[in-house]
Every structure is written in structure tokens, then in C-alpha cells.
């Protein structure tokens, strides 16, 4: 026993000596730029400025190639990328937050098909991916690994959370290689481009306005939310809650963890308490359980907003309820690799690449159902991969690389 500790102490002592002798701050680590230090108390999610911005963006006609929404932009402010222009196939390093929900899985499949196209075109040689499995800490380590070991030509990052990933993204920027961030943002403008659909407030505005139009003052809406503390989801609810409040709609919110059993219990309890006229969701999976709860209780179908997930679209069509499918554009998963191709070609890209995001309305349901016939329930209608090589088989079989 004693010897063990002697050895251990000796080791620690030796390490301390090494530390004294050669304590080096990692070269990749440098003091942060000033604007990054502004992260203060983010408890309140509602942000009037962002709300107004996204509200306005909903009405802008996107620019870009017709029929390719993943290349369209809204209010683009182009930046020059000539400094990155170079020949040859490049290696992309992708730090993914996770593929733990159907939306991300669908996007991930699409991204890999897009990769095949670009590999054939000789733009991208390979894409190395590390999946952080929903952990901030793991993703930071992933990005550091790429910086040290990845031999990356371009970093593509889908941050697991906004503020926490900022220092790591800055380290990636410091390598001088182009950095592309998509889906959730980071609190630094060092990436070459930040790709995302309009955003959570737009989702909240679309859905809340729809429900307010269809319902009357004093009606009750049950809001089914997945998790607290995730910015893209919180913003959806922050906008909707504000609008419901202003319109005199009574809204109660629950966290469901996207578990349909939980959703069904919540709706059943609400129906036992009194009538429910509307259902609002911050993500569509589990929508079917909510509708079935009304069926089982023998209550009238509610006015409902879900998502462009196939299960909701199918149930919507089948029941003929009054609904709206807001969209958090899944086709954005194609854009980062295409952006990388543009950057290496020296083409201008938008600093903030806002992709179109428009809900599926009752008139469009049939069209999207027909387009995606044969897709599994967890598939997203606006996945935008119809022109990719594996279509439709890869999405139908849901082959996750």
C-alpha cells in the first residue's frame, strides 16, 4: 500500500516538475476577442429585436435558384472568400451535435447523399465526422481533436449549444481554415458563414398567428414542448406565448420529452379538466398521440400545429382536422457542404445565410404527401433531397451511415 502511494506521489511530483519546466498554453488557445465576453444572464428567451427581424424575414421573397431552397438566401450580406480559394478536393471535418432525433437523422442522411455528389464532382475528398451525442463537453473535445489531428481543410460545425460552443469555434477559426456553422449559432462572427433557416421566433409567429386566427378569445391551447433550455425550441415558445398572451388565448405548456405516452396522458388530463380548442407543438414527433387522445376521449379535434414530419401530415390528412405544419427547414443539412464548395471556389457567400422557412398549409398537404409516399413516419417532408442519387431508397430504408 505504502509503496503504491510513494510511486503515485513520485509520479505526481514529476508531473509537477514538468509543469514548472514546460508549462505551455496550448498554441491553439488564445485570449478571446472582446465581443465574445458578452454572455450575460440569458434567462429570458424573448428578444424583441430578433423577433422583429425574423417576423420581417418571413415576408421576404428569397433570392437564389428556383426549386433549390437550400441555395436560396434571405437578405444576404455577401462576404468575399477569395482568400480561401484553392484547387483540388478538400477534406471536410464535421463536428455534429447528435443524431438523436428524427429531424437530425433525416438531415444527416441528406447530408451524406450531398457529400457523395460533391465527392464525384471532385470538390470534397472526404468528410470526417465526430458525433458528440448531445454533449457540449464532447463536442468541444471533438473540435479540439479536429484542430490537432484532423488535417481538415474546412470545419463544419453544428453546435450542440450556442454559448458553450463559442470558445471552441473560435479556436477553430484561429487555424485560418474556413469554418461553417449551421443550425444553432455561436456568439462569435468568426465563422465564414452561419447557415440557418429563419428561426424559432418565425416558427412561433407562424403557428401562433394560425391558432389565433382559427380560435376565439378565451379558448384554451395546450402547448407540448420537448425540453427546457434549448434555444431553438425556447424561442419558438417565447414567440408563441407572447402572441397568445396578447390575443387573450389561454395557453398551458408541458414538457413531454417527445414521449407519445406522456403526450397522451397530458392531453387526457387536460380534456378531463375541460375543453381544449387548440394544440401547439414545438416539434412534431408525437403529434399523432396528441390527436389520438382527442379521439379516445371522444372530443372534437383541436386546431393544431405540428411539424412537417410525415406522421403528423398523414394523421392530419386522415382526420381532416384544421392544422398547420410549421417547418424548421430540414434541407439546411445540404447547404454547409455546398457552401464549402463555394468557398473553395472563391465565390461569395452570405455572412449569415438565412434559408427560407415556410409552413406547409392545408392546401399543400396533398402535394407533400404524394411527394413523400413510402417514406417512414419519422421522415421530414421538406428534406429537399429529391435530386440526390440515393433518392428515394436511402430515406425510405433510413440508412444511417
Amino acid at each position: 500500500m505504502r509503496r503504491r502511494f510513494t510511486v503515485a506521489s513520485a509520479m505526481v511530483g514529476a508531473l509537477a516538475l514538468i509543469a514548472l519546466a514546460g508549462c505551455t498554453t496550448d498554441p491553439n488557445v488564445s485570449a478571446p476577442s472582446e465581443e465574445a465576453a458578452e454572455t450575460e444572464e440569458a434567462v429570458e428567451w424573448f428578444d424583441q429585436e430578433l423577433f422583429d427581424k425574423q417576423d420581417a424575414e418571413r415576408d421576404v421573397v428569397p433570392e437564389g435558384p428556383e426549386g433549390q431552397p437550400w441555395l436560396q438566401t434571405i437578405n444576404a450580406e455577401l462576404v468575399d472568400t477569395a482568400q480561401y480559394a484553392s484547387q483540388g478536393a478538400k477534406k471536410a471535418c464535421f463536428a455534429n451535435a447528435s443524431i438523436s432525433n428524427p429531424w437530425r437523422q433525416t438531415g444527416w442522411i441528406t447530408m451524406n447523399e450531398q457529400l457523395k455528389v460533391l465527392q464525384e464532382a471532385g470538390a470534397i475528398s472526404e468528410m470526417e465526422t465526430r458525433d458528440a451525442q448531445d454533449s457540449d463537453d464532447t463536442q468541444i473535445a471533438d473540435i479540439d481533436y479536429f484542430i490537432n489531428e484532423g488535417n481538415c481543410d474546412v470545419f463544419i460545425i453544428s453546435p450542440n449549444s450556442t454559448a458553450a460552443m463559442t470558445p471552441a469555434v473560435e479556436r477553430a477559426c484561429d487555424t485560418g481554415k474556413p469554418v461553417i456553422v449551421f443550425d444553432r449559432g455561436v456568439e462569435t462572427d468568426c465563422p465564414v458563414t452561419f447557415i440557418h433557416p429563419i428561426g424559432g421566433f418565425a416558427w412561433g409567429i407562424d403557428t401562433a398567428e394560425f391558432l389565433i386566427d382559427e380560435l376565439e378569445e378565451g379558448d384554451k391551447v395546450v402547448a407540448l414542448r420537448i425540453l427546457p433550455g434549448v434555444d431553438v425550441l425556447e424561442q419558438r415558445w417565447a414567440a408563441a406565448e407572447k402572441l397568445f398572451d396578447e390575443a387573450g388565448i389561454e395557453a398551458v405548456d408541458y414538457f413531454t420529452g417527445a414521449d407519445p405516452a406522456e403526450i397522451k396522458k397530458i392531453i387526457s388530463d387536460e380534456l378531463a379538466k375541460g375543453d381544449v380548442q387548440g394544440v401547439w407543438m414545438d416539434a412534431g414527433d408525437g403529434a399523432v398521440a396528441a390527436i389520438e387522445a382527442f379521439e379516445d376521449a371522444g372530443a372534437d379535434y383541436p386546431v393544431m400545429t405540428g411539424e412537417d414530419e410525415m406522421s403528423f401530415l398523414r394523421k392530419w390528412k386522415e382526420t381532416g382536422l384544421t392544422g398547420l405544419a410549421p417547418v424548421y427547414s430540414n434541407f439546411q443539412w445540404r447547404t454547409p457542404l455546398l457552401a464549402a464548395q463555394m468557398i473553395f471556389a472563391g465565390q461569395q457567400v452570405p455572412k449569415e445565410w438565412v434559408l427560407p422557412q415556410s409552413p406547409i398549409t392545408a392546401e399543400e398537404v396533398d402535394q407533400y404527401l404524394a411527394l413523400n409516399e413510402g417514406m417512414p413516419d419519422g421522415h421530414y417532408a421538406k428534406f429537399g433531397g429529391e435530386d440526390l442519387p440515393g433518392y428515394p431508397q436511402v430515406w425510405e430504408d433510413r440508412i444511417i451511415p
Partner: protein
Amino acid sequence: MTATTTTPTQPGFGERLAAFGRILISPRGAVFLLLAILLVAITVLNPSFAEPDQLVRFIQRVAPIAIVAIGQYFVIVGGEFDLSMGSVVTAQVVIAGNLIGQDASLALPVTALMLAFGALVGLVNGLVVSFLRVPSFIVTLGMMLALLGGVLYWTGGAATGNPADEFRELGRGGIRDLPVIGILPWAVVILAVVLALAIWFSKRPFGRTIIALGDNPVTAAYSGTRTWWVKTSTFILSSLSATVAGILLVGYAGVHPSVGRGYEFTAITAVVLGGVVLGGGRGWVVAAVAGAFALEALFTLLNFAGVPSTYRDAVQGVIIILAVAYAATTFRARRKGRALEASPAGPEQAPEPGPDEAKETVADPASARPAHIPSTQRDDNDTKGGS
């Protein structure tokens, strides 16, 4: 609750009432008391809850978790843990969704396959625990990770879709057009059957052997128990119960990879609320089911009371700790008391008429809340450690 169940005036009414009161505040009765309080509270907040059709709906909702709790009960009373139940539920839900699809004729073969798969998972758990001597906590934790990961890999994260409605009828539908309750959900019937089987099983020699094994494995081994088989069978039972719960949940909720998530902890909590001792050897399956009902009633109460969604976990945490602490401390106090006075007080009276009365309660498993529990006459428990 207390008043209504004991009103019939019989000889020695006061005595009986006192005894019953003692039982209710005794650790093993505590869960029934808690359940009664919760149900009364729900009814006060929402009187329509007490209507028969609502009550039946409530039982339907609790059925899957109660069935999982029954399975977990056997594992825990045998001295082990099963953390893989939630993943088994998820796996079975996804299997049902992907293999049955819209073809109702596949329902029976796939159900058989699911049961076989459930039994296999339990068998693997049990054999690894018995022969490789890996703690069940670790075995079932590994199984939980591997099973869930495997299912997600197989389906690409999301199942194809809900299975045929005929199959989902088990969890969703029921016998319709009945008087009073309107509809008797199949889930309630299945729960009653499973509970009856569980009670019958735990009264059988084999069921008692499980408790003996959990209580003292060495004595059990010396008395000729095939330890490995008893242990393995508890894991098979729990995986099978998770399978049944999965079948009900496919109907009730539909297919989604998050169905069943966290069920292992809910089940363990329910079982412990029911006064079953972690580590094995003590507990009553009906109390475990009551624990499941109490837990679900708590969630319902929080829903009805309009408690902000973020506070619910905290409330749940407080109640779990208080309930278990109450059971543990009163249990201790009672033991101490009995050790001092040689003549046993209230709770000790119960064991004498024990078995017969026990069977009476057993015979009525379908009753929603087994509130009228003459006792906790686990004679096998009370004999232990008393001297």
C-alpha cells in the same frame, strides 16, 4: 377513503378500525394511504375524476407502468436490479411497429416473436448475473445501452410507423358499451390478469423461493434451491412484463423511440414506494402495484393542480424521499418497540389470520385500488429478524 372502506359495523368495530389505522400508517400500508390521499386530492380538484369511466381510464393509463413494476418487483425481491426494462419496452414497441406494419395478419406471429425476444433478453441478463457473477446493476445497464443502441441502429432512429390498428386495439381499445363504466379497456383486463398471475405465482413455492433467495441466498442454496434458475427466471419475468407493457404502449401511445424511456427508474421507484426493500427479501407484489398507481396519481395530481411544468420533478423527488423515509423510520420504530414489549402490537396480529385473508384480497385483483388491505401479512418477512 379510510372511512368508506371500514364503515360496515361489525363486532369489535373500534378494534378493527384501530387495527386498520395501524396498518395504514404501518410502512407497508403507507403506500395505500398515500394512494388514497392522492386520489382524494385529485377528486377534490376535479370531481369528474371519481366517475367510473374516468377511473377506468386512469387504470388503463397506469397499466403499462404497473405491469413493469410487477416484473421489477420479482427482480428486486430476489435481490437484484433490472435497469434494462425501459430499453426492452422501447425495443418491443419498435419491433411491433416495423414488423407488423399495416398487415394485421402478422400480429400473432410477431407477438410470439416479441415474447420470445423478451424472454431471451431476460435469459441473457439472468445467465450473465448467475454465472459470470456480474452485478445485475451492471449487466442490465449494459443491456440497456446495447439494446437501445441496437434498435436505433436497426431502424435508423425512427420506426417506419404505427402497426395495424387491430394490434393497437389492445392498448387503445376495450370492451365497449358496458353499463356504468362505458368501456372496459383491454389494458385494464390485462393488468388484472397479470396481477392475478403475479399474486398466484408469488404464493407458489417457486415465488416464495424468490423471496427466500433475495433474503438469504446461502440459506436458499442450502435448502436445495437452484439459485441460478430462480434468479434467471426473475429476469425473464421482468423482461416479459416489459414486453407486455410494450404491447400496451404501442396501442396507447404509438411507436416512437422515446416510448419506454425512463421506465426502469419509474418502475424501481414504484416498487420501492410500495415498501419493497432494495436488496431483496421483503415486499408484496400488490403493494408494488399500488406504488405504481401512487406514482401515476401523483403525476395526474400535478397536472390537475396546474403545477408549473418545471416544478414537477422537484415535487416528485420530495414525495419519493418522504414516502420511503416514512416507511423506513416507522418500520424501524415499530421493530424497536416490538423488541422491547414482548407482546406484539397491531401489525403482529395480522399474520395469524394471514393466509386466508390474503387470499381474499388476492381474489379481487381487478378492483382498481386495492385499498382494503387487511394487512401486510408477509409472514415470511415478519418471522425474520424478530428475535
